[in-house]
């Protein structure tokens, strides 16, 4: 039998490259995404290496709030500390807190969203209504509650951001799941006898990735900023371990006098959000096998 088909159907010339290589190639074609990725990689390197020109805690009470100069590229803050150094230093905290928080929130939200979308019924109602409540619950209250439960600390900023992000992800992933569930390949898998778990993990979950990426990159920016307000509740960033959001907030008092204290951290957040969005868009297109 194998004989018959083999001779009748010729093997075509068929170029197969490793999928990763293919994806990379596809991604590399999107210039803005690549530039943004380079920027993000740079940020990551900065976050790891933290090449600060000055000691970030070194105060200089005679040189406070001075505008950008060749000495202090981004000026100095109210203690005369070098803003540039502090921003470099803050990269790690800002990125890691936002990334970790949004990732955890995203994962939990995705889980709930998929469950709600797949099983429908009562479970869905409960999850979705819980999301409504959470969305209308002020973040501050939530944060105070979290401090109350687990006390202050860096990890808890992450948890607060995660908790706050959950309902958004849940909603988006749920609607994505609802759409995917109707696709033929899901039915095909079910007809094979694939278990629910595998169906969810292997077939539906990957399909929600594009929706996930878009929300994920959008939320990073808000996470960096909300991390700042959380640090004011007593967890997260401190003067010795500043992040951009906290710098931005403390710059608020000097808005008229030393605008550089606001401008640079704000710019850093803006560029990071922009870069993540661009990379996200590029990634979404790359991962969409239909787009070539």
């Amino acid at each position, binding site marked *: 039998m194998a004989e018959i088909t083999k001779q009748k159907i010729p093997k075509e010339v068929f170029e197969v490259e490793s999928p990763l290589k293919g994806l990379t190639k596809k991604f590399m074609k999107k210039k803005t995404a690549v530039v943004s990725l380079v920027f993000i990689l740079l940020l990551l390197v900065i976050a790891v290496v933290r090449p600060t020109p000055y000691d970030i805690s070194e105060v200089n009470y005679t040189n406070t709030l001075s505008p950008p100069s060749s000495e202090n590229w981004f000026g100095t803050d109210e203690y005369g500390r070098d803003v540039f150094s502090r921003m470099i230093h803050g990269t790690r905290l800002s990125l890691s807190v936002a990334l970790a928080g949004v990732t955890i929130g995203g994962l939990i939200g995705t889980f709930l969203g998929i469950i709600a979308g797949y099983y429908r019924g009562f479970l869905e109602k409960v999850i979705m209504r819980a999301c409504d409540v959470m969305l209308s619950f002020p973040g501050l209250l939530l944060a105070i509650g979290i401090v109350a439960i687990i006390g202050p600390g860096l990890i808890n900023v992450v948890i607060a951001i995660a908790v706050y992000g959950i309902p958004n992800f849940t909603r988006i992933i749920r609607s994505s799941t609802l759409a995917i569930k109707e696709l033929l390949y899901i039915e095909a898998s079910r007809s*094979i006898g694939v278990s629910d778990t595998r169906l969810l993990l292997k077939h539906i979950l990957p399909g929600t990735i594009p929706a996930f990426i878009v929300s994920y990159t959008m939320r990073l920016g808000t996470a960096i900023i909300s991390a700042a307000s959380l640090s004011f509740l007593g967890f997260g960033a401190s003067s010795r371990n500043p992040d951009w959001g906290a710098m931005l907030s403390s710059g608020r008092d000097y808005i008229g006098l030393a605008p550089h204290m606001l401008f640079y951290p704000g710019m850093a957040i803006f560029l990071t959000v922009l870069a993540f969005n661009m990379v996200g868009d590029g990634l979404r297109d790359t991962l969409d096998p239909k787009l070539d």
Partner: protein
Amino acid sequence: MKDVLVALNNVEKRFLASKKMFRENKYVHAINGISFDIRQGETFALVGESGCGKSTTGRLINRLLEPDRGEIWFHQENISNYSSSQMKPLRKKMQMVFQDPYGSLNPRMRISEIVGEPLLVHTNLTAKERYRKVMDLLEIVGLNERHAQSYAHEFSGGQRQRIGIARALTVNPSLVIADEPVSALDVSIQAQVINLFKNLQKEFQLTYLFISHDLSVVENISDRIGVMYLGKIMELTSKEKLYKEPLHPYTKALLSAIPIADPTLKRERILLKGDIPNPIDLPSGCPFHTRCPHAFQRCVEETPELKEVKAEHKVACHLSFS
């Protein structure tokens, strides 16, 4: 009757169309009491227009859907009310091939994964063994090792359909339910796939439930044919009898509507009037009476039974065929 593999007995299935708070719910009557057997080793074809319930029948047999009424037998087991865990071992014995060769393959999985999935679910083979088996099967359907590492979108329609077929064959099923497997394909590719189906049947002693709306394709591949209309079987007989001597007016209309690739052959066509009725509000009596050129009073009032009017030839019609 020897070696009946699948038997449907008065099966009914309806879907909720709309839910009303204070009034009666509305239903789509997809399957309205059908009975037929599929015998071991044969190709049983279901033909009919879009929405007449062909796919639903397939899904019922596969138990992706639960019948509202009636019995479904598979391998002498009544599987009508089996749970999904009871179904699991049986799923191994019946596999599906779908119409949309793109949509039925997960775009995010490699071909080797897609084809290997039934093995993963139903056997304890190691990854290596699975891979070897997958390769064998791909070879049988005319694909090779390089293809195994690619994704579905990199293939042509015909190749995709072969992947779907390979997947169906991995666990040595006895029944393959093919839901319009060639409808989306170009003629030349369609021919390749039909040939493949036929060859595989010989090779592996497969039984097919072949769903199609294309009577010329069906003739080429099937042994017996059931013609469906609005969730009912209107005519059921062997291929030869159906094409030589169609009895039901609907079958006749269908046959005459097939475009024939021969401009010299000018035929008398039976042009039906109107559209297929809405399965939510089924017409009374014979479902076909709204479009039937021969309909008379009784057709409006009384639903005809599927009766054996000749040997091995069942028809559901009030007209007499003697």
